[in-house]
């Protein structure tokens, strides 16, 4: 069984707003690069499935060559192989076509996992576009997948609750976080093994980008002064807070 997980290396997603800086509309290169938050959840789901069903886990990424050492962490978590397509576009079509190219080289793929949204572009559309290109079904916001009688059953988290969905075609699942898929810390042995794992590097194929024009990227200023209330007596503090909220007509 071949399980593919798409992982993307992004700038540190926990940079505090006060320290955030842009250069040419993108995050300053001084911020540490790391695998996206939801991508790690996806890798974790992939590893759990690989262990449960005795599969092969292939990590695939579109990005920079310097990101390979960071992607080895995904291998250390349980990946068997890393395929990286070297390129630096942000365009979702370019990314998806290239991921598709990488996936098609693997051969018989059972399904594809991806994080529900990248931590830099905040879009969540590459997995769906990729599904369209592969002619796979797209199921977003999944936390768990199980094989039941030869078909995959996915648990999807919605605004109102959860859905159990049976999938009868090959699918791309975008993964959201859940206490059951918290990314594992790989044991040191796996980290050392990952360092020697072969990495397949592919050159990107040229694809026309989406036809939209990026006009500007700005950092919105948060201009709020926090009014701190004294806590000598909790009840007094509570009263003071409620009074202030009433004064400002919030309550």
């Amino acid at each position, binding site marked *: 069984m071949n399980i593919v997980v798409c992982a993307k290396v992004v700038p*540190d997603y926990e940079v505090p707003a006060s320290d955030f800086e842009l250069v040419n509309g993108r995050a300053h290169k001084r911020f540490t690069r790391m695998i996206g938050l939801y991508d790690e959840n996806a890798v974790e789901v992939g590893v759990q499935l690989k262990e449960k069903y005795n599969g092969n886990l292939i990590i695939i990424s579109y990005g920079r060559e310097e990101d390979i050492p960071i992607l080895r962490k995904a291998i250390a978590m349980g990946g068997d192989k890393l395929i990286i397509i070297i390129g630096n576009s942000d365009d979702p079509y370019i990314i998806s076509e290239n991921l598709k190219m990488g996936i098609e080289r693997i051969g018989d793929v059972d399904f594809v996992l991806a994080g529900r949204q990248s931590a830099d572009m905040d879009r969540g559309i590459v997995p769906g576009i990729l599904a369209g290109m592969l002619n796979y079904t797209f199921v977003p916001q999944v936390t768990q997948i199980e094989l039941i009688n030869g078909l995959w059953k996915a648990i999807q988290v919605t605004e109102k609750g959860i859905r159990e969905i049976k999938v009868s075609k090959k699918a791309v699942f975008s993964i959201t976080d859940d206490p059951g898929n918290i990314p594992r810390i790989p044991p*040191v*042995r*796996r980290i050392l*093994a990952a*360092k*020697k794992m072969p990495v397949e590097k592919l050159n990107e194929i040229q694809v026309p980008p989406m036809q939209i024009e990026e006009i500007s990227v700005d950092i919105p200023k948060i201009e709020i002064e926090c009014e701190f209330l004294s806590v000598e007596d909790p009840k007094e503090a509570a009263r003071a807070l409620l009074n202030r909220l009433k004064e400002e007509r919030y309550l």
Partner: protein
Amino acid sequence: MGRTPYWLIKYGFIIDLLSIPVGFVFAYGIFIHWKRIRMGTERIKLNISVSTPKIGPFYIKPFIFIGILGSKIYKKIFSGIAHGFLFWGMVLLLLGTISVLMNVVFGIPVFKGLFNYYFMGFTLDLAGLLSLAGVLFFIFRRIFPPQRITAFKEKKGFLLVETSIAFVIITGFLLESLRISYNGIDPGSFIGNWISGIIGKPGNIKIIYQSIWWIHGIVALAVIAYIPYSPLVHLILAPINSGLSRPLSGLKMGVMNFSELVDNVEEIQEDELPSLGVGRLADFSWKRLLDFSTCLWCGRCHEVCPAVLTGKSLTPKGIIVTLSELLKEEKFQESLFNYISINTIYNCTTCAACIEVCPVSINQTKAIMRMRQYLLMELSEIPETMGRAYKSLENRGHPFFGTGFGPNDWQKDIDVPIFQKEKTEYLLWIGCSVAYEERAQNIARSMVKILKKAGVSFGILPDIRCTGDPAKQMGSEFLFIEIAQQNIEYLSSLGVKNIITLCPHCYDSFIHYYPEIGGIYRVFPHVLMIKKLLDSGKLHLKKQNINITLHDSCYLGRHNKIFDEPRELISYIGKLIEMKRNRELSLCCGGGGGNYWTEEEGTRINRERAREAFETGADVIATSCPFCLLMLTDGIKGFTQENKVFDIAELCENFME
């Protein structure tokens, strides 16, 4: 008239012959211990050289002072004195017995003249009296034990050997007195003479004397034979353990050698890699197994442990007791985590108070940390919050996840020079806590102002780096070495030779661990640097009319023996008030061992320490470590809204003229 050896005893030399089988039984007992200890792994050699006299693997000073003279036992004065009486008394009595043997075999005239009076008579009687007093103290203690003896588990076997020893001494005096009653006053033997006066001359002396003599002899030999099988084995193991313990302060963790693994990672199959850290008893070094064999379960470590104080599951005594029982049962291959829980192992703040007070030089913390290394590096087990800090350190190079600050926010309003290769003398190492925690940022600002005022040639790195110490504390040698190697490479490229640190954890890493990986620097913790500037007249402080209490940081204090300089600094600023637990016995703030990022069980250590500090009534609580500053600032909130906790650098900057 001198004393006749073997008075009334025929074939007395049989006793001496019996010492041969006793010797074999004794040797076999020691052999069992040795065999068990050798089931451990080869000891990791520490590369830091310590200039202290050595014979083979034995360090002479600790062997003599701690091992034989038992200097640490005297920290509890009554136990110490009782033990001293017992031990030295028995040593003297042993010398007495040897003297008798010399007389019997070689005819040396021990029973004549001044030697007989002062030594064979007076000294030996005194020795007997004192050792009896000592052993009676210990018998009493076993019957009415202090909490530390019974905490976790009580070691069996003390009463048996103690009462046997008492028996031997008492029968010894009886024999002496009976002999004196029938042979006349023995000059010098004031006890024997006195008892003789009381018991007089009983009838049937021959049968009575002979019976007591043989019983006395056999029991004495039995005790000797039994030594290795009883708690008395510490007579052998304790001096050896102390002699083999490198006299270096701190945890003496050493640095794991991954380079061989990493270089040969192509050839070595994953499952052939040796175990990282300790998961089973056999993974411990034989030095650790010797530690477990030596432990007398005295509980002194239990009493000073901050985890015990605050009701956590960890007790260092419990750890060593559990491991020593497993060793005795020879359970070398079982998983230790069936017996010791993960939370217990992560409760440890590495304050090293246990190491400080242990009379037999056991390194409890190292045993705990070795298990922690296995938990994290092999099993990826780590408590949740600490795990997030760990992941943050791994991903972004510092453990302060969720920080609201960028790396350079601390220096927003001040102008800080950057280290220039070959031009700047000192690198001011900022470290991570001072950059990312708002309250601690002032330490850096204050130090920068002090260094500028004193005209010191210093500079910082253009980027904030962590020494990797939190990784080591949490158990990942691997991550620590990765970070340290990157730092060393960078510092080499800049030609850094002198470093000033703001955090004792950084200092400790630079001093104890970086040299093992090739990073050798002269390192000054900021308090020593400030003191240096004061002493050389480059800085002046205005004395204030305030009371200041000092919280000793574990990593400056116990780990590096820096106690006096912070005190001298404080005396320049105000009046020093000591807390009850100070210097070597200072109570940890609770932030070490990665426990800054932890949801604590039980009550909170920082609150305990803050209470102690607050109750001195001092105007200011001085700290010398950013973690202590943060922990105590939080802890003091339970007692006052006022901010009383300040770093020494902040105080000096405030009061410099």
